[in-house]
């Protein structure tokens, strides 16, 4: 579904230029759920935004569904690839009702039977028709994220890009949203590319994952490898251990390494 070769994204020009993504390559098979894990600033979201067509300043070779991507996309591309953002409070237009938000993609792509589509997609994300004419401020965080997922689903894409879809939510709501995404994947066979800083979320949702740091992919492994601790990189081990909780002995040892890297 996705083939990325040597993707590089730079921000700024000349001396002040920052390389956010540095020659990244990976492949995601059709129907697979692939995770990109890393800490803030590692470039994982930047990759997602470049793939979604939100950033045109990138170089490298990207193929989605067999077609090579140009920085500028055709309208049909957006029917193929959709994105869900991290912050459900910021990703819905505050002046649009749920209906208005879901109506936009239908109008842009000139689809037929709008009411039927909206009702169906709202049911699919577990919101009844009662939610159709509410404004975002009348919804909880979890409900907003469901609307955001509905907005991505309404174009019936083949690839869904998920940018930390649950990191702004409480754990109990996170579980609901992750279950919803699992159900959607089961029923539609969508391909997922999930970006997260949370190794346990990625291991729950994905089949394979890539660990990123400082704009590069350190290593790629299957979730099975991860569970069996068959990682090669120290960095992956650190992430793994951190996800288990606090460990006094390990953490105290790490403090010493912080000073050089920290300042």
């Amino acid at each position: 579904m996705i083939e990325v070769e040597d993707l590089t994204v730079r921000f700024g020009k000349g001396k002040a230029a920052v390389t956010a993504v540095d020659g990244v390559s990976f492949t995601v098979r059709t129907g697979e759920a692939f995770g990109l894990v890393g800490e803030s600033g590692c470039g994982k979201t930047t990759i997602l935004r470049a793939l979604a067509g939100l950033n045109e300043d990138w170089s490298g070779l990207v193929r989605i569904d067999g077609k090579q991507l140009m920085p500028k996309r055709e309208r049909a591309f957006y029917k193929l690839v959709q994105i869900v953002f991290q912050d459900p409070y910021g990703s819905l237009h505050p002046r649009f009702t749920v209906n208005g938000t879901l109506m936009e993609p239908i109008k842009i792509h000139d689809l037929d039977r709008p009411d039927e589509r909206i009702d169906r997609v709202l049911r699919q994300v577990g919101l009844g028709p009662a939610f159709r004419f509410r404004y975002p401020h009348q919804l909880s965080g979890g409900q907003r994220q469901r609307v955001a997922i509905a907005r991505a689903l309404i174009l019936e894409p083949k690839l869904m890009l998920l940018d930390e879809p649950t990191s702004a939510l409480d754990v109990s709501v996170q579980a609901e949203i992750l279950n919803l995404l699992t159900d959607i994947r089961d029923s539609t066979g969508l391909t997922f590319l999930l970006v997260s800083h949370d190794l346990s979320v990625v291991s729950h949702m994905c089949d394979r994952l890539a660990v990123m740091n400082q704009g590069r992919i350190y290593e790629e492994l299957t979730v099975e490898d991860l569970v069996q601790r068959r990682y090669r990189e120290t960095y992956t081990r650190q992430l793994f251990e951190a996800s288990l909780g606090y460990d006094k002995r390990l953490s105290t040892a790490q403090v010493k390494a912080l000073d050089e890297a920290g300042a």
Partner: protein
Amino acid sequence: MTAAIETERSGLVGYLTAEVSRSPTQASLQRLYFGCRRFAQNPLAMVGFFVLVALILIAVFAPWIAPFPMNEQNLQTRLLWPSADHLFGTDELGRDIFSRVVYGSRITLQITCLVAVIAAPIGLLVGTVSGYFGGWTDTIMMRLTDVFLSFPPLILALGFVAALGPGIRNAVIAIALTVWPPIARLARAETLTVRSSDYIAAIRAQGAPAWRVVVKHVMPMCLSSVIIRITLNMAGIILTAAALGFLGLGAQPPMPEWGAMLSTGRQYLLGSWFLAAAPGLAIVVVSLGFNLFGDGLRDVLDPRDE
């Protein structure tokens, strides 16, 4: 469970306060209803609102309110002091000042509305386009705006009227030219914050063309601050119009424009102060009304503390 116990209010209020909206019209009407309720809770804003309603009513029903035709001269009864016949007295040509102030409301309303209708869309368009596209578009449009902003508004308006020739229509154009640049600046600043938000990224990721993003998604976010700004500017517009009238570059005699009336009244200030006081008071009241209304509007449209 609770839904069953909760008694639903019926009728119009029930429709407007219903927890669940059933149609887009209901959703937007509910928004309007709650906005109005908020507005009504602010007494000063309501004062402003009633001043504006009064202004509109007076302008519409001027011929019925005014006891005399606005331009009827009678040299026998010139410079009469306020009395039951002539509420605000008469001017140097024996015209009833009250009637002239009443008719003058039409001119004031006309000027403010026209300026708002011309300046707000221009400012909004220039600001949002400039802010959204950035780069060269932004540089060119903002430098142009800077040129307009670098003159004091009154001087700029004077210059334009001097070039175009005196008269109400030219005064409106001239004032509009001074009003749009700050609005463009404001709209641009709003656009810059809106542009980087996720909901704009989301609509772009759905393949919306740039014009659609600007018109449907960016503009509504800037609209409320533009409306607030232009309402608060109304006082300034009225004063500029009056100033142009005062300097003889706006409405031409014998039109009962408040500024022009003030200007002629100045010559009789010592003997017959009411000549200047009546239109002056009208200007103050209406300007204040617009300001109070604008402040109230800001609380409703721009609720930062929600």
